[in-house]
């Protein structure tokens, strides 16, 4: 009797749980969309992203540069057309290569994306990609897919275990989650393809999509960290297709689309005020291989070399491999010949001289640093170091 009741209970649980499976095929959204029925999963996700947006606004992590914000917001509006009024832009200060558009219209663009894009066209492609996720309700569909995978995994796993097939429960989970991952990879491919169409329709180059992915792939490949190198995508449980496949697909798609000439200079002018700070965020991460690839690529334009070479020198100092210190000194010395070299360049040179016992050179470089940065926060320390090095006060 008890066994029969348990079987009935199990069958009921199975039926109830599977009935909770959600559709993964949502309709594209319409302008001004907002779920009115608060009991739905969609409403709950909106509620959570509303809260996340509130926290982001309070966090102080957003970049308050009116010109930059206006430009990126304008670009989003070019791409999204009538949906522009539904989207609110936040430029977030983090070196990760990413952007996102949440179901509630919170559009996030990381500084790690802005520094890696070399033209407005590349940025337009990424924003087009994110807009497709937003327009097609991919976030909600993906949530439903993961939810269904959880249900399938737990229900079938429990049923298998009850039937004495406990050894196969991990296979059930693998099948369920790889299905969700495949679904996610399909969404990414769709977002790449349609996103490129949107960017091209707005007048941007079709080659920009493959270009920004190629740049990022080079960076990942040069990373010092296995975990970063493995972020190239693909795999049975990967949520994103392999980057090389994305590049191939985008390159093929671009062959039939217009590719007007791209303007690197105007885009660089837009991010120039932040270049020094954003590079510093990368340098301190100490992924030297990836950061050097990024810096060297940004240097190919031949502008901002004071700032870029300063960052390069700092990477070399931190890496500290054989010959790095000498190369760093040369790099700082070259940086110092450029008008945009930050005062830090002279402090870094001074430090290398000091470590090498070249006291007079160190003191002179420290003094040059103070001359260029009279309000430096480390002025007291530097003055003390100059006294130590020369025996006289500056």
């Amino acid at each position, binding site marked *: 009797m008890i066994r029969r009741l348990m079987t009935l209970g199990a069958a009921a649980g199975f039926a109830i749980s599977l009935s909770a499976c959600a559709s993964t095929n949502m309709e594209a959204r319409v302008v001004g969309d907002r779920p009115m029925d608060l009991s739905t999963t969609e409403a709950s996700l909106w509620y959570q992203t509303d809260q996340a947006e509130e*926290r982001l606004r*309070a*966090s*102080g*992590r957003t970049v308050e540069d009116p010109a930059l914000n206006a430009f990126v917001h304008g670009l989003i509006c070019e791409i999204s057309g009538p949906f522009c009024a539904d989207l609110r832009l936040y430029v977030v*200060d983090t070196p990760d290569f990413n952007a996102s558009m949440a179901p509630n219209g919170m559009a996030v663009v990381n500084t790690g994306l802005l520094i890696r894009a070399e033209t407005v066209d590349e940025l337009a492609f990424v924003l087009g990609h994110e807009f497709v996720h937003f327009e097609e309700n991919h976030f909600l569909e993906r949530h439903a897919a993961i939810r269904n995978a959880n249900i399938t995994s737990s229900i079938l796993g429990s049923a298998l275990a009850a039937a004495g097939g406990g050894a196969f429960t991990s296979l059930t989970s693998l099948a369920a989650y790889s299905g969700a991952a495949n679904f996610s990879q399909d969404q990414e491919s769709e977002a790449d393809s349609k996103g490129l169409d949107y960017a091209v329709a707005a007048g941007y180059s079709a080659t920009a999509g493959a270009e920004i992915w190629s740049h990022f792939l080079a960076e990942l490949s040069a990373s*010092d*960290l*296995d*975990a*970063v190198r493995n972020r190239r995508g693909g795999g049975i449980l990967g949520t994103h297709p392999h980057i090389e496949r994305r590049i191939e697909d985008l390159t093929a798609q671009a062959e039939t689309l217009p590719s007007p000439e791209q303007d690197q200079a105007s885009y660089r002018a837009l991010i120039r005020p932040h270049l020094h700070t954003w590079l510093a965020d990368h340098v*301190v*991460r*100490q*992924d030297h291989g990836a950061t050097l690839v990024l810096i060297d690529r940004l240097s190919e334009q031949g502008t901002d070399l004071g700032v870029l070479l300063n960052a390069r020198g700092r990477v070399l100092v931190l890496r*500290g491999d054989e010959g790095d210190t000498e190369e760093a000194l040369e790099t700082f010395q070259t940086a110092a010949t450029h008008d945009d070299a930050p005062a830090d360049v002279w*402090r870094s040179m001074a*430090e290398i001289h*000091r*470590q090498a016992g070249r006291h007079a050179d160190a003191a002179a470089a420290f003094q040059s640093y103070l001359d260029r940065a009279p309000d430096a*926060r*480390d002025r*007291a*320390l530097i003055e*003390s*170091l100059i006294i130590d090095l020369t025996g006289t006060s500056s």
Partner: protein
Amino acid sequence: MKQYLALALAAISVSACAVVPQTAPAGILETEGDFSVTLERDWSRWPSQINADTTGEFITQDGVLLNRVHLVSIPDEGSLVRPRRGVEMPIYSEGASEFEVIEFVTSSLEMIGYHDVEAADIRPVDLDDQRGLRFALTGVWQNGLRVRGDVATLPHDDQLDVVLFMAPELHYYDALSAEVDGIIASINHGAD
């Protein structure tokens, strides 16, 4: 064999339970590092074993989010942030310059929930008859609350001794900064 395994597991479990926050009474506190400090009054002490984010111990008056003073000696190639798989941690290297030490501290804090951390009022200081470094910190906690802090670092043997105080700018920093100054001034390595 199974009994020994069970005993070993029980011993491990008990030892895990045994590490709890403790009272650090007023007076001399021998830190887990290679130095001691003098406390004006009682504090609560979180030993290193139960700190999820950082290496070494810290003491607090009102809770880790409201005030914390880390007291730690960081070895050569060691970190202030507890290592995580696949994440590159800021590392201290013996012989690091003052500027590298500052960057080590600020970038470590950026990995445990603070952001926009900046050093100010950077100055040399004599601590326990040795040349050390002091600087102030400003930053933002992950919920957006502005925080302030004070740091003293002192290279000693092949280690870096660090006293790091962080607290919300509102009320909590001012309430303790003078007392933390006293703690920093009391750093003592005993008879080396």
